[in-house]
């Protein structure tokens, strides 16, 4: 194995403005909402001049070399060695390392959701716990039990920070979705004899539950709260934004500026905990977007099919098979394309000959 080698600097210089454009393209393509038009424009740029292509190859070449650091353990070593985390977050200052390590000792990890359990145990997520950060990969789900008895389920592609101290019990949702069943206190009590206050932070605001079961999902522009039991208060981040209390059977979305009025929660909104997705009269495009959260491939459909209403229960463990089955049951064609970028795309299309459904 050609272990841990980084490329030598390229000898032929690349014009600075081309280098700058190439970096801008890379950032745009990593964005949270890329479009086909963006990819087309990027390909046009690459083809426009040999220097463009050379600059792009340089980026790819270094990125490929960087991927060798991405293994579990190695990435953590790289972070800790090159750029130790500092308490720079404005919303949730992290405790000093010593306090942090102490807080971590109070964490207990419960592993083993379905068949991924063994893999997880071997890959030792206890190191992730050592940074009080828990992550799931795309398609992975996990259950955690915290020191105070609070139980968490992490949905696909999720990252959270757990900060438990004598003064507060705080979860920070960095991406993805969590389901929380809160408990009261555990062993730690504040000086007043009450358990430390519990809260969930997202970039859009803070949630304070009142003894309850709820899920929090972070999307690009807003946070979604769904309450299954008890009640949860939303405090959007911006000063002066009104607090909203959401009760059992309701869901609400909010961003930093404010919360939308709560609406009725659809049934089985927490079915992902059991590895299922339950759709009831759901537009096909929405269903594919939801399934796509659990798959590395990008799922889409022809725009003429987007509003097709679907009902059914779908297992989340083999999304490719679900899509194939879905296509067969609806009489649609599925087409798989591997993009230049390396990502697989599965598109559902109307059967040949039928222009419209």
């Amino acid at each position, binding site marked *: 194995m050609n*272990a*841990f*080698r*980084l490329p*030598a*600097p390229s000898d032929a210089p*690349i014009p*600075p403005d081309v*280098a*700058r454009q*190439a*970096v*801008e393209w890379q*950032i745009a393509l*990593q*964005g*949270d909402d890329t479009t086909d038009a963006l990819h087309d424009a990027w390909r046009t740029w690459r083809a426009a001049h040999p220097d463009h292509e050379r*600059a792009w190859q*340089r*980026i790819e070449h*270094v*990125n490929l070399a*960087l991927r*060798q*650091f*991405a293994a*579990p*353990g*190695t*990435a*953590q*070593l*790289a*972070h*800790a*060695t*090159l*750029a*130790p*985390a*500092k308490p*720079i*977050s*404005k*919303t*949730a200052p992290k405790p000093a390392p010593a306090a942090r390590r102490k807080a971590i000792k109070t964490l207990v990890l419960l592993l083993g959701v379905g068949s991924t359990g063994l893999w997880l145990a*071997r*890959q*030792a997520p*206890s*190191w992730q716990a*050592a940074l009080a950060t828990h992550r799931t990969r795309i398609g992975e789900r996990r259950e955690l039990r915290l020191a105070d008895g609070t139980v968490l389920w992490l949905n696909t592609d999720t*990252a959270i920070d757990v900060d438990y101290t004598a003064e507060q019990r705080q979860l*920070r*949702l*960095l*991406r993805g979705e969590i389901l929380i069943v809160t408990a009261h206190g555990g062993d730690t009590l504040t000086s007043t004899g009450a358990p430390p206050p519990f809260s969930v932070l*997202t*970039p859009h605001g803070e949630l304070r539950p009142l003894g309850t079961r709820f899920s929090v999902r*972070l999307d690009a522009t807003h946070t979604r709260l769904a309450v299954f039991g008890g009640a949860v208060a939303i405090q959007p981040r911006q000063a002066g934004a009104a607090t909203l209390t959401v009760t059992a059977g309701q869901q609400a979305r909010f961003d930093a500026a404010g919360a939308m009025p709560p609406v009725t929660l659809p049934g089985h909104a927490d079915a992902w905990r059991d590895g299922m997705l339950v759709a009831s009269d759901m537009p096909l495009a929405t269903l594919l977007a939801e399934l796509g959260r659990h798959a590395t491939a990008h799922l889409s459909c022809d725009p003429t099919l987007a509003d097709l209403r679907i009902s059914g229960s779908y297992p989340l463990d083999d999304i490719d098979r679900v899509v194939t089955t879905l296509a067969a049951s609806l009489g649609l064609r599925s087409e798989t394309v591997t993009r230049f970028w390396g990502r697989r795309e599965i598109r559902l299309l109307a059967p040949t000959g039928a222009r419209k459904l």
Partner: protein
Amino acid sequence: MDQHLKQEIHTLYADHQPWLQGWLRKKVGCGHLAADLLQDTFMRLLSRQTPILAQEPRAFLTAVAKRVLSNHRRRASLEQAYLQALASLPPPLAPSPEESALLLDALDQLDRMLDGLPPPAKRAFLLSQLDGLGHAAIAAELGVSVTTVKRYLAAAGQQCYFAALTAD
């Protein structure tokens, strides 16, 4: 290698080696380390492509030795951070001693590629490239806006992809 350059280095060594070793020993307070750094300083000269033509040999040697010294210190603090991080890894995840040496060298190289960037920019770049986090997730992790994250990634990408590695 150029005969003229070889002769230049030979003269520098003959005339100034004891003096330079003394200068280094005062800086690091250890004779063995000073001898190693002296060795590194002349190794660095031997890798040159162009003649030295130093008007002020001692000023020239001090300038090269300072770079060697600062690289030594950077590497030492990197190693310390690495060993601390390694100590807190659970045994199944820890690399083998051979892997560890290779990894440390690669991290050293990556550290030089990122050298001089503000720490949050380094962190943003590593979160993006090593952890595959999206812009919004990095923004949340660092407690800054997505616009700032993009600025960090632009600065880090510019340097990491297109600035030549500084030779040491």
